[in-house]
């Protein structure tokens, strides 16, 4: 319901402890890091900590060679620490061995089946087979059709073993004396034997032997590389290493406690003491309103000094959605769907929105007496609770249409007035008194729009006359004049020169059109809320069609009803959701909200 209060904290360590400080800060889950380049004083000789590319380059080199050699790296949790010399020595050895593995792999182009067969052949030992002086080994695949013909040849001059079989090929290895090798090769060749070269070294064994060393080194290099990604947050000031950023007020103590074992010093400041930095915005809302932060994030976070509008958005969104999509049954479906999605994925904010607007739909659905398109089911309850003859409100009744549309504009007008009040509150907070007094969404605008609203209420509902000559001069004429003179008046309040920047002639030409535009926007913004009433009618109309189809289809009625309801929930739920969001953004946010805040982002997200 509010924006979390922040503290600016600088954590300072010496040359021997800054890495530990950085890691602790990154793992703290409290710190929003501030780029050192934003706050160091270059003239004072401050610098940003410089990155060393050794770790990244080496890491890339190892990754590339492992990929080419077909080795899947599994970095270790616990690893040794290496000096630069040790890393370089490892790299020389690693490159020599893995390049040989790559060359052998390239020479033996294998598919998956070849690999299976080769795996079985490995048991004999590739090096051993290649080193034999008096016998020759052959390995490859032979078409299954040819396998049947093999026994038509003289089989006494070789020994053969089947290693693997697919639908088309059989993978075999044979061994023969060097005396018969030509003859045996001719037999195999004539049967379309496709020879695969037996590798000169066992690449698999080599990879297994080196796996531990590679995984250990990669883990260490990754740790150093990740650490280096955070160097941008560290400034070197007078030989000290400073990690600066924002921590929420309530977390400051916990944050400091994490550094107990490290030799560091803290410097803590209020956010208004660091005017050169923009404090980050962290919203804090209760479980019910929190999902609506999604709409705030979409539009842009509020500034640190602004107001968090989530609660207002939550209430108005639920109200407008509930009215437009008022059906108890369908609301329950939305509630159920939203709750299930929320349980499955608690981070899915939209699911929370669905479940909450579902509740609003249920409330208004109950008031409209609508349950999956059935308009009579709640009648007895209405009669018992509200003492009405039939039901509380007949949406589809001809006489209800005007009431609905008028009520929609009424709700709109009230929401516009509330938006203006919020805007005024923010102007007071920012001490922008000129805008507070003279802007269309300030006191003058509020008086003018409030007067028209009050007058129309008297004219159409409460039978009093507010549009007298005097009132019109006071509440319509004077505000219009104030709008016309807004810029000079604001300048006057702010103690600036009254004369407009481009002279009086240009100013009045522009201001007349602006005043016209302000009046026009009051009308169009109010009319925009007509859609609330319109969608009540549209929803009821669509359900009427579904219910008519249910009656027409006889035995299949239940199926038609289910499909019809799914269709209406899907289609209209989406449209109403979008329209409500449109009202939020265009009719309300435009009056009081500017966004432009900076997200509170944990330093750990950079790793």
């Amino acid at each position: 319901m509010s924006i979390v209060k922040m503290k600016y904290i600088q954590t300072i360590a010496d040359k021997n402890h800054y890495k530990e400080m950085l890691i602790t800060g990154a793992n703290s889950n409290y710190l929003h890091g501030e780029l050192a380049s934003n706050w160091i004083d270059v003239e004072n000789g401050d610098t940003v900590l410089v990155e060393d590319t050794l770790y990244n380059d080496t890491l890339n080199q190892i990754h590339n060679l492992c990929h080419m050699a077909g080795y899947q790296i599994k970095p270790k949790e616990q690893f040794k620490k290496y000096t630069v010399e040790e890393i370089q020595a490892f790299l020389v050895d690693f490159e020599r061995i893995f390049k040989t593995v790559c060359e052998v792999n390239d020479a033996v182009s294998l598919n998956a089946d070849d690999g299976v067969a080769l795996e079985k052949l490995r048991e004999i030992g590739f090096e051993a087979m290649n080193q034999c002086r008096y016998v020759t080994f052959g390995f490859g695949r032979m078409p299954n059709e040819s396998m049947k013909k093999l026994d038509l040849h003289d089989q006494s001059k070789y020994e053969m073993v089947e290693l693997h079989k697919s639908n088309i090929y059989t993978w075999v290895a044979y061994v023969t004396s060097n005396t018969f090798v030509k003859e045996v090769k001719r037999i195999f060749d004539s049967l379309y034997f496709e020879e695969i070269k037996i590798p000169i070294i066992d690449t698999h064994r080599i990879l297994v032997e080196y796996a531990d060393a590679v995984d250990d080194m990669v883990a260490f290099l990754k740790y150093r590389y990740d650490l280096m990604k955070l160097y941008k947050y560290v400034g070197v000031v007078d030989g000290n290493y400073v990690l600066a950023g924002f921590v929420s007020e309530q977390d400051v103590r916990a944050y400091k406690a994490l550094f107990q074992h490290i030799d560091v010093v803290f410097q803590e400041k209020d956010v208004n003491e660091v005017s050169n930095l923009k404090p980050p915005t962290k919203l804090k809302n209760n479980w019910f309103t929190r999902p609506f932060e999604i709409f705030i994030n979409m539009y842009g976070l509020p500034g640190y000094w602004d107001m968090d509008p989530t609660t207002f958005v939550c209430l108005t969104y639920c109200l407008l959605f509930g009215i437009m999509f008022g059906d108890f049954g369908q609301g329950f479906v939305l509630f159920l769907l939203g709750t299930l999605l929320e349980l499955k994925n608690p981070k899915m904010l939209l699911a929370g929105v669905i479940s909450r607007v579902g509740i609003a739909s249920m409330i208004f659905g109950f008031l409209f007496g609508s349950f999956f398109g059935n308009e009579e089911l709640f009648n007895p309850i209405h009669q018992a609770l509200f003492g009405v003859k039939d039901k509380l409100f007949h949406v589809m009744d001809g006489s209800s249409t005007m009431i609905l549309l008028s009520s929609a504009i009424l709700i709109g007008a009230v929401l516009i007035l509330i938006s203006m009040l919020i805007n005024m509150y923010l102007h007071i907070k920012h001490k922008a008194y000129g805008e507070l007094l003279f802007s269309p969404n300030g006191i003058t605008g509020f008086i003018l729009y409030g007067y028209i609203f009050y007058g129309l209420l008297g004219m159409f509902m409460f039978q009093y006359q507010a549009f007298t000559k005097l009132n019109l001069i006071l509440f319509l004429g004077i505000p219009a004049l104030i709008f016309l003179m807004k810029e000079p008046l604001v300048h006057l309040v702010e103690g600036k020169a009254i004369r407009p920047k481009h002279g009086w002639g240009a100013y009045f030409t522009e201001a007349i059109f602006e005043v016209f535009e302000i009046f026009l926007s009051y009308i169009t913004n109010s009319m925009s809320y007509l859609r609330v009433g319109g969608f009540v009618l549209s929803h009821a109309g669509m359900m009427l069609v579904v219910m008519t189809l249910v009656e027409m289809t006889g035995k299949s009625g239940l199926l038609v009803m289910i499909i019809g309801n799914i269709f209406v929930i899907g289609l209209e739920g989406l449209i109403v959701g979008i329209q409500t969001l449109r009202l939020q953004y265009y009719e309300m946010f435009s009056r009081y909200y500017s966004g432009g805040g900076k997200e509170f982002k944990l330093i750990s997200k950079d790793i």
Partner: protein
Amino acid sequence: MLNKSSYAISSKAKAMYGKRLKLEDYQALIAKKSIPEIASYLKKETYYQEVLDGINEGSIHRGKLEYLIRQDLFERFNRLLKYGLGDQHGTYRWFIVLTEVEQILESIRVIQSQDNFDMISRLPLFLEKSMSFDLKELINARSFQDLHKVIEHTPYNKLLSRYLFVEQENVDYVQCEHILKEYYYQTIFDILKENPDSASFKAMRDIFHLQMELENINKIYRLKKYFKTAPSQINKYMNKARYHINDKLLHKFIYDCNLEEFIEALKHTYYGKFIKKSGVDDIEWLSKQILYHNHRQNLLYSNDPDLVLIAYLALIEVEIQNIIDIIEGVRYKVPQDKIFKLLLI
């Protein structure tokens, strides 16, 4: 031969022929630089996809590719027969006889050369169960006595006994081929005679008479051109069938003409128009083209299942030969235009 109710076979054969390799396929194949590229094209762009699926086109051997394509032909033939009456009927029988004749001839060549490697690699084991003799025993026959034992209880024994039980180096291979081919055609005509009144009888007889006559012309051409064989010997190798060329004319070709005179005389027969039209004197290639043309006409315009099936098999055989010619051409780096001229399209 086939049940006449199985007219579906002609529709099916025509539909299958529709998937044949087209001119643009041949052009693409000729443009390939290696056998793996040809195999890859056949596997990915043509209806040979099914039979070549799973093969390693990067290392495929020319012989294996040919073997797989031939196996595919047999499988297609089998599929077509399912529309007819199965493997006890005429068309299947002559197909088997043809294969048996080819295998016996191959065996005679093996006995003469004492090298059975190629025969083993090409051995149609997929037809093993339909043969009247044991294929595997045939492979191991290293003498005519062995061959005699293998075919002892088949009609081929009686046919060949006069020729095989002489000294091995004196065996007349051409004569053996002639005798076996005679038997093959005789089998066909015997099968045809089972339904002498059928509408297809004449058309079937005509196509085989044409084939036999073209074989006679080819033999005269080949024996005169390459072997300078004595006329009386050439006469021994002649088929009995006469179609567009009568006995008198054939006698003249054999006894009274040298090669040039024979070709000139041939130009004044039914076949002359083909020689004039194509402008080439390669009688063997022309013979193939005439047969190809006839089979194509039958496949496109006939509805007789037997005729269409035989035409289909002959045309696919031509397609296979075209592929083999392309493979050979690419392998030996023959210019593309020369390979193209070899093809029957």
